[in-house]
């Protein structure tokens, strides 16, 4: 340190000014960080508050819910959950929903992978228009197709089966899968394909052994989105089923009876529909940021 001790009043003043500026800067940045943290916290509270209220109610008895408003359960009870887990007509709703969601994920993935590869690697007649047409299906309001769907699946004898809902959800899930996967595949350099073909890989073998492992994270993210949109959809699922494959969303309507709404059970059922989502998002949390840009950042 050459300027450890200031040797003139001018230098002292300069040094002091510099120190003050540094402190101000630091103060400002901790202040700003605090403000940012508080704003973020405010949003998180806004997100969590309604969910907390649902959880809160699911742990109360109906008499407590309808009595004095309490910010947390006074007499904690798991009876609402017990009711759902012991009554087959309740828990089969979850099984049905998960069944058609998984079927839909498998179907969508298996046809979307080759299609996305074609879109990302080749130019062919009508490719742009085909892609656009796919997107419009993603945007098509299910209400438009409600009645024909009912007729169609009734005619082919699939009404009230899991596969019917799985196929119907393909309408918006396949386009979504193609869209996301195409983004991820386009970021894999083409030289990889060419090298593999020169090395004597056949197309199917190259696709399964080389290409798919390279876009693993993209596939994970895509599966997450397929799960999400199939899980949250209600209108088609409800229209295409009656008793055998009834999704949880329509089982939940049973909580409103002539004698009023069974709030506790409704809340518990609601909480249980959020759980699978949390599990899935936990698995893909590291890739989700990229996936939300649909592979296009």
């Amino acid at each position, binding site marked *: 340190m050459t300027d450890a001790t200031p040797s003139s009043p001018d230098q002292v003043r300069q040094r002091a000014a510099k120190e003050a500026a540094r402190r101000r800067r630091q103060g400002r940045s901790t202040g700003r960080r605090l403000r940012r943290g508080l704003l973020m916290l405010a949003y998180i509270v806004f997100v969590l508050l309604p969910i907390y209220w649902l959880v809160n109610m699911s742990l109360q008895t109906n008499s407590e819910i309808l009595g004095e408003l309490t910010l947390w359960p006074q007499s904690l009870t798991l009876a609402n959950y017990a009711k759902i887990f012991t009554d087959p007509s309740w828990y089969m709703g979850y099984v049905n929903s998960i069944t058609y969601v998984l079927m839909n994920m498998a179907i969508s993935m298996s046809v979307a992978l080759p299609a996305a590869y074609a879109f990302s690697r080749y130019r062919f*007649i009508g490719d742009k228009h085909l892609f656009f047409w796919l997107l419009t299906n993603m945007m098509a309001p299910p209400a438009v197709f409600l009645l024909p769907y009912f007729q169609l699946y009734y005619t082919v004898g699939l009404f009230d089966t899991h596969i019917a809902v799985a196929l119907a959800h393909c309408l918006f899930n396949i386009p979504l899968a193609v869209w996301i996967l195409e983004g991820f595949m386009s970021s894999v350099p083409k030289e990889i394909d060419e090298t593999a073909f020169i090395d004597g890989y056949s197309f199917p073998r190259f696709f399964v052994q080389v290409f798919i492992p390279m876009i693993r994270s993209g596939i994970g993210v895509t599966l997450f989105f397929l799960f999400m949109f199939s899980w949250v959809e209600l209108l088609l699922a409800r229209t295409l089923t009656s008793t055998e494959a009834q999704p949880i969303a329509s089982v939940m309507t049973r909580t409103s009876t002539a004698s009023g709404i069974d709030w506790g059970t409704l809340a518990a059922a609601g909480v249980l529909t959020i759980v699978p989502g949390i599990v899935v998002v936990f698995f893909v949390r590291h890739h989700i940021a990229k996936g939300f840009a649909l592979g296009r950042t």
Partner: protein
Amino acid sequence: MDWMVWTLPTAIFFGVIALLLVVMTTWELVSPTRERRGFLPISTTRGDRFFIGMLSAAYIHLAVVGFTSLSLWLALGVSVVWMLVLLRWG
């Protein structure tokens, strides 16, 4: 197929659309399009102009049907002329 309640006009409608798609594809195979800039504010290929033509034709028909008492054939005529203009100069 009974439940699809086909009628002759709608069958002809879809037949014509299918035919137009086949014609556009064959045209594309015989002489591939080049992207160019016409009077439309974006550069388009032949297929793009075809799509724009079809979409505006749908809106022309809706407008004529919904808000005037003019004949539907007039709407069709206007749409065909508009489509040709688009394909040539769009």
